[in-house]
């Protein structure tokens, strides 16, 4: 399978482990990721605070480059990038005047032919239909945390059920995890306020973590670099603010899938987490009822290597 790829800046820096795990999965499956040549920043939260036109022109350039490169579908793992690209696509296709103006600015034509996939859509695409070789079913209760950007505003994103999305839960079930029903799936973690209003981020993120734990989750699975940064990297601050210790680890959806497929933890960037990840104990004996895989290449439980820190 061939997919265009837009890593955005997060996946090049702070969330390099997200990038690593995407590529680890690509290596495992027959996925060929083609990075959009000469891509630029999507504008993120900053651009649309400054200029509406700029906030459209930046993503429009990325999309135009993708079109030029003949990429019919682009995988965009970062939720913020995904949201900016979707918004630009939506606005430009709705308003031809605006589209012409932006085309003029970026000095490239833009038709809107490249389909934008978020990481969940990407994973569904890659793993639906494909025969799964699940070596280590996750066997844990997971809270699927979609974050706020991926689903909102619904009329632009048109992704899943905006208030109670299910696609990640379904995907996690496939990989042997047990997704819990919890109400904070699309609540805000504090996102970009992490530098300017850390206090707020701690408060909001604490609520998310608290709700996940309360509903029985052992792992939080995220699909957004910002969510990961806040729930994982800010954990010490969150704990300080809440006056409580939380041990619950936070994994990218790609890492969780990678683990289930038996990909080496280092390759998935698991060592980069602030909150150490320990694979929940696998029930010994009795092959688990759920993923009845005919081919069991390696039943031997290699006790999870534990977190490398």
């Amino acid at each position: 399978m061939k997919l265009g790829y837009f890593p955005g800046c997060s996946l090049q820096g702070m969330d390099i482990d997200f990038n690593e795990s995407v590529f680890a999965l690509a290596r495992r499956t027959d996925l060929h990721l083609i990075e959009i040549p000469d891509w630029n920043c999507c504008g993120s939260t900053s651009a649309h605070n400054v200029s509406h036109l700029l906030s459209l022109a930046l993503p429009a350039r990325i999309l135009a480059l993708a079109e030029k490169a003949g990429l019919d579908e682009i995988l965009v793992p970062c939720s913020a990038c995904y949201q900016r690209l979707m918004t630009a696509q939506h606005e430009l296709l709705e308003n031809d005047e605006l589209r012409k103006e932006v085309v003029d600015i970026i000095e490239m034509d833009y038709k809107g032919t490249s389909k934008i996939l978020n990481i969940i859509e990407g994973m569904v695409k890659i793993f639906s239909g494909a025969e799964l070789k699940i070596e280590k079913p996750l066997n844990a209760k997971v809270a699927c945390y979609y974050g706020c950007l991926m689903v909102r505003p619904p009329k632009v994103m048109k992704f899943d059920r905006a208030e109670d999305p299910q696609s990640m839960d379904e995907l996690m079930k496939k990989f042997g995890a047990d997704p819990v029903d919890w109400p904070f799936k699309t609540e805000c973690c504090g996102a970009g306020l992490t530098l300017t209003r850390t206090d707020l981020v701690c408060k909001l993120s604490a609520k998310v973590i608290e709700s996940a734990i309360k509903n029985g989750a052992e792992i939080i699975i995220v699909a957004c670099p910002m969510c990961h940064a806040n729930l994982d990297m800010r954990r010490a601050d969150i704990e300080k603010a809440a006056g409580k210790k939380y041990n619950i680890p936070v994994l990218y959806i790609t890492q969780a899938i990678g683990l289930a497929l038996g990909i080496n933890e280092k390759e998935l960037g698991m060592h980069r987490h602030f909150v150490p990840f320990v694979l929940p104990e696998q029930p010994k004996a009795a092959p688990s009822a759920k993923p009845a895989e005919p081919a069991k290449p390696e039943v031997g439980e290699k006790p999870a290597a534990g977190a490398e820190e």
Partner: protein
Amino acid sequence: MSRIGVFICHCGENIAGTVDVAKVAEAASKIPGVALAVDYKYMCSDPGQNMIKDAIKEKKLTGVVVAACSPRMHEPTFRNACAEAGLNPFLCEMANIREQCSWVHEKSDVTTAKAIELVRVIVEKVKRNKPLYPIKVPVTKTALVLGGGIGGIQAALDIANAGHKVILVEKQPSIGGHMAQLSETFPTLDCSQCILTPRMVEVARHPNITLYTYSELESLDGFIGNFKARIRKKARGVDEKLCTGCGVCMQKCPQKKIPSEFDAGLGKRPAIYVPFPQAVPNKPVIDREHCTYYKKGKCRVCEKFCEKKAVRLDQQDEIIEVDVGAVVAATGYDIKGTDFFPEYGYGKYPDIINGLQFERLASASGPTLGAIKRPSDGKEPETIVFVSCAGSRDPAKGINYCSKICCMYTAKHAMLYKHKNHHGKAYVFYMDIRAGGKMYEEFVRRAIEEDGVVYIRGRVSRIYQEDGKLVVKGADSLLGGEPIEIKADLVVLATAMVANSDAEQLAQKLKVGYDPYHFLSEAHPKLRPVETNTAGIFLAGAVQAPKDIPETVATGSAAAAKVIGLFSSAELSREPVIAVVNRLPPPQFSTCTGCFLCEKACPFQAIEREEIKDRKGNVIKVVAKVNPGLCQGCGTCVALCRVKAIDLQGFSNEQILAEVLAL
């Protein structure tokens, strides 16, 4: 040679401000066949009409063209004026130089030129107009009222009291509608059933009303004054004549766990049941979907215990055909369930209920006998949150309109709760309070000021369960958007009022219009609120749009008044703008070749087959014939006829062509 009079109206500044009317008059006077062309300030005024009348007499006009506004409002005015002067009214036509010219263009010579063109076109048409005469049709003085809620009851009683027969059809086993489910009514807090049930009884006893409950309209054919309705009387499973309504069958029925529709799912009922104690008629029906006998082929307990031997397990649906002259659609509304709201848990939390369910909790005849208890564990809630505009006024939910009744019933609910639980806390989240109505605003103030209901202006973003409480997250938009979290025991969503799920099918059966929300469309939102665009079909109550009880009753009476008006004469006259199939002398008889494509195309089943016979009675030719009572003058057959044998009276092919050529 035609002698056409052209009368050009200034309509004050409306036309004369943009169009040079004098020039139009001058140009019109030069059109061949025009005997007179004048302009005047207000043609529709008495002096204006007199000008036309005098001219008809003095100039012996053979046709009249009034160049003024759209024919929609004033065509009858001018046609009547012509008729008074002895000219066939269908020889008078209007050229629309206001809506189609002066209002939509700037003042210029081109605009005036267009007005002249429009006049010329109509003059050419009128030259070819023929005198036409209204069609008379008889009226069946029986009304069909669909829906036995308060709107239908009101319409039925009003029509019946005026001395006409009424057939009242109700889908449910009993009449009463949603009003029967309500506890108390705003703004007077009088008991809903106490004011409704006497009306229900009156319906049942009225000699002019035939009541069909557990029945639905199957189809409706015909036209105003002459409809044919087929009503499906669903198999009740009980012989209504023998049944005394003793209720033994209901007590003995082993199936007792079926969620009661009347109690909005909060109570239970058996498989053989009457929906509520005051039901009219008080005769049970068997719910075949849940009855053990129909599912497993045995049981028959009700049959065994019925002393009157009234149970009929093998009863079949019955189709009843009736002739009626008018139809009142009063089929009411539905409300959204709590499962419509993903952010409020998709209906998975039992203690989030909708307004109708709260009515049942608060009602003395309800599952809790009027005690406010939450469904999950039967505890009395200490904190209740009411969420108004749940779905309504929310384009993201696809419901842009205001449901109109929720502000009032939410205030009532909060009040009823506070009256029953003095120490309880009641919160209302609202967007705006819409309390337009007599004593309505006062009622809401009373809830806030006297009963201490806490109103918070803001919307609820999410509700979830935590530690046995429902956490209601919202924001107080009056206090700077401060986030609010209330831990509630019970949440009541004032869910949106929506059209019935089968409203679209009903509209199609009745051949009336409906809006994007499937509410049936009135003929004019202000001036013809209870009529539809299909003559003889009227609307009452919330089938047209969300309405409260007073408004529903008012529209019920209004629809009844329209029906009574219709029934006040023995014959109706209709505009003769209908299709006709030409007739020629023998041996051709008609250019119609008898292909009957028109028969298939006619949306009103107005095409009949006529056999032309010789003197011995042998059929020479079969040709199409238009039933003048059924034809609505849509022109589909005219366009389709391959040999141009059909023409529309008043809009003949010749007339239209003349108009085109005149341009």
